[in-house]
C-alpha cells in the first residue's frame, strides 16, 4: 500500500495532511488510522462505499466532529487557524430548506466569517454574492425562496456560497448527489475554473463512472484508507475490489462495522 503513495517533495507543502486519524461513534470506529496527503492544486475525489466514512473524513478535517486520535494540517498548520483558507459545501440535507430566506441571502452567509461580529452584509457583499450566483448560472434565481428551488438549484446555491468564501481549499460533500444534468455541468465547469485558479478541491463522490473524467487525484476509503495518489495510478480494478469488496461483505452479512472488515475481503 505504501508503494502507491506518492510522497510529496520536501519543499512542497501539502494542502491537507492527515496523520493517524481515528474517529469513533459510540465505540464503533468510522475512520481507522487514516494517513493522507493531498497536494495543492489537485481535484481530489474521495471514493468509497456507503458508510466508508467519507463525510466523516471531511468533517474531521474541518474540525466539526471530535476525533479519537490523530492530527490534521491544512497548508502545514493545524486547522483552527486555517479556517479562512477553507470553503465548505456540506451535503444539501444539512440545511433547513424551509428556512425563511432567499438564494441571494444564503450565498451572503458565505461571508459571515469574514464579516466578523455585529457587522451586517452590505452592498459590496450583495454584489459579490450576485457574482457567485452568476458563476453557477443562478443569477435569475437570486430572489427566489430557497424552498422553491429544485435540488440541483439548491446545490448550486451552496456552491455559490462556498465561492464567496474565496478560499484556497474547498471541501464538497456529495455535490453531484441527485442533481440534474444542467447542475452537473455547472459543477464540473466550476471545478475546472477552480483548478485553473490554482485552488485545491476535495470532493466526496460515489459515482465510479464519472470520476475519471472529473478528478486527477484519488482517495479510496473504507473505514481505513485503501489507497491514495494520482487518479490513474490508483483507479485500478484491484484497488476498487479492495475498497468495495469489504463493504459488499459487510452488507451481505449485515454485521457490525469493524475496522478489520474494511480490508477483510482480500
Amino acid at each position: 500500500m505504501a508503494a502507491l503513495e506518492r510522497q510529496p517533495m520536501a519543499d512542497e507543502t501539502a494542502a491537507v495532511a492527515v496523520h493517524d486519524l481515528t474517529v469513533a461513534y459510540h465505540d464503533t470506529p468510522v475512520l481507522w488510522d487514516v494517513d493522507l496527503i493531498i497536494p495543492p492544486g489537485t481535484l481530489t475525489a474521495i471514493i468509497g462505499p456507503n458508510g466508508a466514512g467519507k463525510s466523516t473524513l471531511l468533517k474531521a478535517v474541518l474540525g466539526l466532529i471530535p476525533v479519537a486520535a490523530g492530527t490534521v494540517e491544512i497548508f502545514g498548520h493545524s486547522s483552527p487557524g486555517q479556517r479562512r483558507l477553507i470553503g465548505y459545501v456540506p451535503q444539501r440535507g444539512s440545511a433547513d430548506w424551509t428556512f425563511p430566506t432567499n438564494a441571494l441571502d444564503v450565498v451572503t452567509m458565505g461571508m459571515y466569517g469574514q464579516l466578523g461580529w455585529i457587522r451586517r452584509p452590505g452592498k459590496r457583499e450583495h454584489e459579490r454574492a450576485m457574482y457567485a450566483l452568476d458563476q453557477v448560472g443562478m443569477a435569475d434565481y437570486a430572489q427566489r425562496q430557497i424552498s422553491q428551488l429544485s435540488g440541483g438549484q439548491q446545490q448550486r446555491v451552496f456552491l455559490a456560497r462556498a465561492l464567496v468564501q474565496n478560499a484556497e481549499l474547498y471541501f464538497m460533500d456529495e455535490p453531484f448527489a441527485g442533481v440534474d444534468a444542467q447542475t452537473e455541468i455547472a459543477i464540473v465547469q466550476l471545478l475546472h475554473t477552480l483548478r485553473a485558479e490554482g485552488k485545491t478541491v476535495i470532493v466526496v463522490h460515489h459515482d465510479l463512472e464519472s470520476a475519471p473524467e472529473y478528478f486527477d487525484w484519488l482517495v479510496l476509503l473504507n473505514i481505513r484508507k485503501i489507497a491514495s495518489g494520482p487518479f490513474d495510478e490508483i483507479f485500478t480494478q484491484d484497488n476498487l475490489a479492495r475498497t468495495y469488496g469489504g463493504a459488499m461483505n459487510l452488507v451481505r452479512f449485515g454485521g457490525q462495522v469493524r475496522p478489520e472488515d474494511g480490508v477483510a475481503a482480500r
Partner: protein
Amino acid sequence: MNILSELIFDYTLRNVALGSMLLGIVSGVLGSFAVLRRQGLLGDALAHAALPGIAIAFMLTGSRSTIVLLLGAGIAGWIGTMLFLRIVKDTTISEDTALGVILSTFFGFGILLLTIIQNQNTADQAGLNRYLFGQAAALVASNVRTFAILGGLAFLILIVFYKEFKLLSFDADFAASIGLRIRSLDILLTSLLVVAVMIGLQTVGVVLMAAMVIGPGAAARQWTDRLVTMLVLAGCFGALAGVTGAVISVQGARLPTGPMIILALTTIVLVSLFFAPKHGYLPEYLRHRRNRRTLTAPDDTSVRDLREGGAA
C-alpha cells in the same frame, strides 16, 4: 375611545397590558427561533422545569419578590433545558421522550415543593400558586420594569449575535466550518428563551407558556419568507395578543388574563393559518384549484369557458 383612555390612565389595566405586551414581544421574537429550529416544545419543557426553581428560591430566601423567584425559575428552567439537550445529544433517547421525561419530572417535583410550602403554613406562601396559571391581573409597575430590563437585555444579545443565530438555525454544519462555536451559540440562544419564559411565568403561567413561545412565530411564518420580517411580525402578533387578552380580561367579566391572552393568540394563529396570502390554507387551496383547472382544461375553448362560467 374609552378603552384607550383607560389603557393610559387606569393603573391596573396599564400595567397588565404593558406587561402582557412585553411578554408577547419577547416570547414572540425569541420563540420564532425555537419554531424555526423545530424546538417549539422546548419552551414547554423550560416553563415546566422552572416551577421547582420558584419553590426553591422561596424556601431559601423566604422572599416573594418577583426578581428572586424569577431568577430561581430561570436557573431551574435552564438546568432542565441543558439536561434535555444533553440527553438528546449523548443517548439514543429520542427528543420527544426526553422532553416528556424532563417536563413531567421537574413539574412533579415543583408541585411537591409547592405543597410542602403550603403545609408549612407560611403566611407568605400565597402567591406561589399563581405561577401555575399566571396572574397577570396582579402585575404592578415594578414587575413591568423588570420585564422591560430582562427583555431589553435579551434583545441586545439577539441583535449582537443575529447573523450567527441565523446561520446556526439554517445550517449548523456550515456555521461550525467557518469557526462559529455552535455549542455556545446554541446554549446562548436557548438561554434567551429562558428569559422569555421568566417573563411569561407570572403572566400566563407554567402551563400555558408553550403557546406564547410557539404561537407568534408560527403565525408570522405564514405571512412572510424573510427572517427579519418574521421576527418583527411575531413580536407584533405577541404584543397584539397580550394587549387584547389583557383588555378583555380586565374590562370584561373578570376573566383570567393568561387564558384570554392565549385565546387571542390562538385566533391570530388560526387566521394566519387559513388566510395568510403566501402560505395560508385557503389561498393555497384556491391557487391549487386554479392550476388544476388550467391544466385539465381541454383545448376546446367553449368547454373551458363553460367551466369557468360555472365556477364563477
